[in-house]
Every structure is written in structure tokens, then in C-alpha cells.
């Protein structure tokens, strides 16, 4: 995954996370969306860290 794809995905997932919290607070689907996008964000960061270790 290229750097621009990775960070574009990061910003999109973060935006979805924040906007969904504001528009649908305290609903079951907001919790599900926040969890999924949060996992996605962490996954992207892990991929970034792993790629750095491989390149070294």
C-alpha cells in the first residue's frame, strides 16, 4: 500500500468515526461503526510499523 493511499484511508476512517458519533450518538449502530473504524485505524498504523521494520 502506498503512503498516500494509507494516509487517505486513515483520514477517511477518522472522519467517518467522528461524524457518525455526532450524528447518531448513543445508538447501537454508532458503537458498531466507531468500533470498526477504530480497528481500521489501528490496523493501518500496524501496517505502517510493520512495513518500516521490513524495509529495515
Amino acid at each position, binding site marked *: 500500500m502506498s503512503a498516500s493511499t494509507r494516509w487517505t484511508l486513515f483520514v477517511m476512517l*477518522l472522519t467517518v468515526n467522528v461524524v457518525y458519533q455526532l450524528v447518531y450518538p448513543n445508538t447501537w449502530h454508532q458503537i458498531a461503526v466507531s468500533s470498526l473504524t477504530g480497528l481500521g485505524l489501528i490496523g493501518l498504523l500496524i501496517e*505502517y510499523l510493520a512495513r518500516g521494520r521490513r524495509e529495515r
Partner: protein
Amino acid sequence: MRPRRSDFQGASLGVFVTLLLATVLVGAFGVLLESGLRAHAPTERYQAARAVVTTPARVGLLTKEVGSKPKMKYRPRTELPRIPVSAADRLRQVPGVRAVVADVSFPLVTASGPSAGAVLSGHGWDSAALGRIAPSSGRAPQAPDEVVLPASAGAKVGQAVRLQANGAPTVYRVTGLVGSGPAAAYFAPGTAAELSGHPGSASALGVLADHDAKIGDLRAAAPGLTVLTGSARGDAEDPSVAAVRPDMIELASGVGGTSLMAALIVVGGLLGLQARRRSREYALLRAVGATPGQVRGRVVQEALRTALPAAAIGGALSLAAGAALHAAMRDKGVLPPGFALALSPLPALASLAITLVATLLVALLASLRVSGVRPAQALGETAADPSGVARWRVIAGALLVAAGLSTLGLSLKTSGAVAAASLSGMIMSLMIGVAFLSPLIARLGAQVLGGVVALLAPVTGRLARQAAASAAPRAGAVLTPVALVIAFALVQLTGVATIMDATSAQASAANRADRMLVSSGPGVPSGAAEAVRGVPGVTAVTPVHRTTVVMPVREVGDVELRSYPARGLGADASKTVDAKTTKGGLDALTGTSVALSKDVAGGARIGSSRTLFLGDGTKINARVVAVYERGLGLGDILLPRDLVAAHTGSPLDDHVLVRCSGPCSPETLRALDAVAARFTGVRAVDRAAFGEATSRELRTQEFLSQIIVAAIGGFVLVGVVTTRLLAVASRRRELTLLHKVGATRAQVRGSVRLEGVIVLGTGAITGLAVAALATVALAMFVTGTPVPSPPSLPFVH
């Protein structure tokens, strides 16, 4: 290897100025802290008393948190207490005690003569012995209609004067004058007890005794009461100084600590930059046998050589700064008039020591990288700045920014302590995330802002853009403090402005009265509300009596004792006050009941019980009868007026709300004015003229936010200027090369200036973005709309 003088003149000057300012600030707040610890109200009327017996100055509650032992938590009481006069009997039995005087105290207004409108403190003549007060002319009062006045009242012995206590002005005959001492009027003891509104009670018991009377015996004779001696006797005269003491201690420590932390961030950055610039020299030292410890020692030594004179001069100046701060806080009403300044060398020495120790730690941290680098690696590095960013920084920064933005929803949808905590967490998270990601932000800024600059200035702009992009970590070190100070300053100043505007908007919206009776003196006599009820056209009359109440609340899991401004509302509260109740109603506010704002209600049900401590420290279990939304405008706690008045030092009301049936007719308004005219200093005003005085808490916050912003702005300005100078100095070879390949001096200078514009501009935009998020969230939390109030300019009113 001696460094060149020009190498670290810039950095050392920056470090010197920053540490000097930091020491001055820490020392100034240290003076405030010491004053808070030693402050007592001046002892004037109790000078001759061996001891003064009163109720404990603070209320306490035993709390237990999970995993820790039970402990007492305390808050000060703010009102004069009520002690039964019979408590003096046991004190009189103590050996050595000559007399015990029950002192009563009540506010008084002169209603005639040259000093009409002057506020005096009323007492019984028997308490004059406690202050060695004797008439300089005339004699002591004996009959119920006799009084002794201070000479400053402008009356003559034998003259008839009108004085107003808690009713319409009454005529008294002046039998004596007191030449010096506090502004107090003395009545016959029986008259004073009646005028105080609580016959049979005293606000303090003054003990006149010989020196052989033991204080321990007095304490044993007064169980449950406090025996005050020495300068602590002043706290019995005026509890307002003791009441602000814990807040001042907390505030001085907090603000002093914040200023020091900000200074150390700047100093750490400067020391780190300086150490990086000399990394090749340190590598050479390592190559010829110096140990990492010796290199670290050298870095620390150089830092301390600058810090020592800065801290010494700053410490000396901090005493004057502390005195000036104290005076400014008294002028703004943040400190009560009796809060005296306590000056000693201790704050100066403490700030010197703290600054030196902190500088030592920061220099050690700055030296870690250069002392640990391998000599061959360092010698092999090119002279160009590194452009890469460590992955751990990117990951940590991204996580913190994501976490900060994720809590935005939480702070917008909750209230009270949870919302405040999540808002603070969001701001901290975003700021630290920006600090970690600063090289990437600098690179982005070089592309975007640099592109704009390159369009406007093709040659110098392009050079500047490339220079900014290629040395991103160095640019990040410059833009980080700029972003932080702009974000911090805007959030602080806007936050206070938003809260102040929301408070006055809520107070105005909550007021359904057509007219208000207000006083230019100590308060509105309770007879005024009764008199207004009889005016034709008036349908609702609500006297309002303010006080401070202490209540245990649960904050993020722990039980804390907090002081809250509270209002006692009289009859017809639901007709004159619109608190926007969500549960229950203000009609039920009678007896021992309480209405709570949603921020402190903590989900309380109507009919449940809440423990709270009234103004004089009396503990009650109040029945919750309403929960309301307008906590900012009305205060977080509403109580029945009679309950509040029975437990405050003054029987007078703060104001009276009056509502007419429909708009008030001219006859009704004239009748209201006539009623008000019967009481000295009282007048009827309309809603436009009725402005609620800003609370002491808000005035304190506004004042302190201006100081913190000015201090941190000063540190960052010094840091940015110094860092820019250092950055230019480190690029001497690069700039010389540019000149040699054809760039003119003007172009080189221009490119350096434009590079500064790009970097500082990126920092400013980043700071504004963080501030915008935080202030919008704060506005939603406080007002319910995403529109923050513009900040008030520092020191300008």
C-alpha cells in the same frame, strides 16, 4: 574543544531570558501561595481578647474511595456562624478567665447626616472591651435607643440619627463617639441582640483572660468549637479571607506549575537544538576517549552556567512581581480586601531551586541523544539537517490525534465534570499529537503554503519552499510552540468569554420579573419584600438571598467536597424565576428542600435526599424537589430563602424580584418607587439596569487566563526568535553556497524571511485549527450552540 562564542550566544540568550521569566512567574505565584498559607484577616475588634471561640472554619466529610483508606475532605465555610450564648457559661469557669463576651455582628446603613449611605458594622457595647474601644467623647449606650458611632460618621454627641438594620430606618440618639478603630456602631447589648435577628446567638465568644489562663483548658470547655488565638483571631472577625485560602493555594500551585512547564518546553527545545548543532564536536570528544557521562556532564554544565544567573535575578525580581500580582488581584476583586501580602525570601529561594533542578533535568534529557551517538556515525553525518521522521513519532502522533478527535463526540453529548474532563483530554491529546507530527505538518505546510508563497515570489519563494520542505524536523521544532501557544491562548481566552457570555444570557433568560429592588449598600431589608406585596398590580414578590454552599459530588468516580454559589429564593419563585426545570418545580422549594442544576444533580430523583453544608457550616439533608438546566445563570443550587437567611451572617436580601400582572402600570411603578424610598440605599430598577455582578470565580478565571496567556506567549516568542536565529546560523555554509552560485544577498535574505513566513504561518494555521475544534466543542458544552464568544483582549476593559 571550545565552542565559538557566536555558536551559542543566541541559544544561551534565549535560555537566559526564558528561565528569568519563568523564575519571576514561579516566584510571584510562590508569594501568593505563601500569603495564602499565612493569610488571616486583620485583627481589629478582638485585639484585647486572649482567645476567640467560634465554630470550626471548615466543614468536613469522611469519604472512602475504592482501594484506599477513608479520609476527611474539607472546604471552608464562608459565613459568620451562630453559637448559642449559653456556651459562654463553661468558658467562664476556666481559671484565669475574667469575662466572656458574646459578640453579635450585623450590617448597618446610616440613613441621615453627612455620611448618609455609609455602611457600618453593628455590635453590642459589651464587645467593645474585646478591642479596648472606649468613647473618645460622651458615654457608652445604655437605653435601647442609644448608640455610639465612629467619629468618621460625622455625627455629634446628643444628636438624633437614623440607622437602618433589617427594617426601615429607626431614630437613635448618639451618646458617644469612638475616635479610632473599625467602622462600627455600638448599641446596648439587648438592642444589638434584637437587631442581629438571632437573639440568644452570637457570631463569636471573645475571652478576656489573664496570661496564666491555659488555652487547652479553654478548648476543653468548648467541645465542638474552635479556639482561635494570635493572628488567627482575625478569621473570626471576617471569614472571607479563610474562605479563599484553599482556592488561592490550588491556584498558585497550578498556574506556577503551568508557567514552569511551558518555559521548560521552550528551554528543552533550545537546548536540544543547540546540542544537535554541536553533535559533531561531541562525537569528536567521544572519539578521543570521553565517556557518554562526561559529554552529558558538559551539556548540563553549560546549561547551568546560563540558568544560575537567570534564576538568581529572576528570584530577586519575583518578590516585587508577587507584590504587584497581589495588588492587581485585590483591585480586580479576585482577593478579598483583608487578604494581606506575606513577603519573605522563601518564594525567591524556592523558585531559584525549582528552576535550577528543572533545567538540570531538561539538559540531561537534551544530552541523551548526543552522548549516546556512535562517534563514527556522527562524524560521518553530513552537515545537512536530517529530513526523515521516526516511525514511532508518526504512529504516536496519529494515535493521539485520532483519540482527541474521537472524544469530541463525548464532550459534546455529556455535561458537567465528565464533559469538562473529556474536553481537557481532547485538547491535551490534540496538542501532543501536533507536537509529534510537527515535521509532517511542516512538510505539508511547505507544499501548500509554500506553493502560495512561490506563486507570489517566484525566485525567493521557491528557494524558501524547498528549504522548508527539506528540513522538516527543524521546521517542526519552530512551528510546534507557535501552534501550541495560539491554540492554548485562544482556548483559554475564548473559553472564559464564552462562559461569561453564557452566564449573563442565562441569568437574563431566567429572570421573569418586571422590576427588581436592589441596594447600593449591604442588602435589601426583609421588610421591603413584605411592603412590596401590598402594592396594587404586583402579583409575585421573591426575595433572593445569596450564599455559598458546600456539597459532596461525585467527579469521575471519586467523591469530592465542592463549594457552590447558591441562591435562597422566597415565595412565588416559580413566577419570577424560569430555571428551565426538567424535573419537579420551584413551587416545592420550602422547608429543607433543594433544587439542583443538571450539572451537579448526578441523576438525582425527585424526593431523594442530598447532604449539604449551609453557609455557616450547618449540615442538612435536603429533599431534592427540582432539577433545572440554567445552572450557569442561577448557580448550581437553589434553596428556600428562609433556610439560607437563618444560616448567613447578614439577614438582608441581595435583591427582590417583583412581577406585575401584565406590564407594570405607571401607578404601580410609582408605588414601587415609594416603597423603595422608605429604605436607605434601595431602589427599584428595570431588567435593563439590573446587571448581575460577575462572580468572583469568573473574575478569577478571566484574570488568570490573561496572565497565563501573556506568560506563555512571552516564552514562546523568545523561543521562536532564538530558534530562528539558531536555524539561520546553522545554515551559514548553505546560504554562502547559494550566494556563490548566483543568488544575490537580497534573494538569500528574502528566502530566509519567506521560509520563516511559511513555517510560522503553518504553525499559526495548525494552532487555529486545534483552537477552532476545541472552542466549538466548549461552546456546545456551555451554551448548546457551536458558536463561541470572541475572546476579551488581555488587560483591556
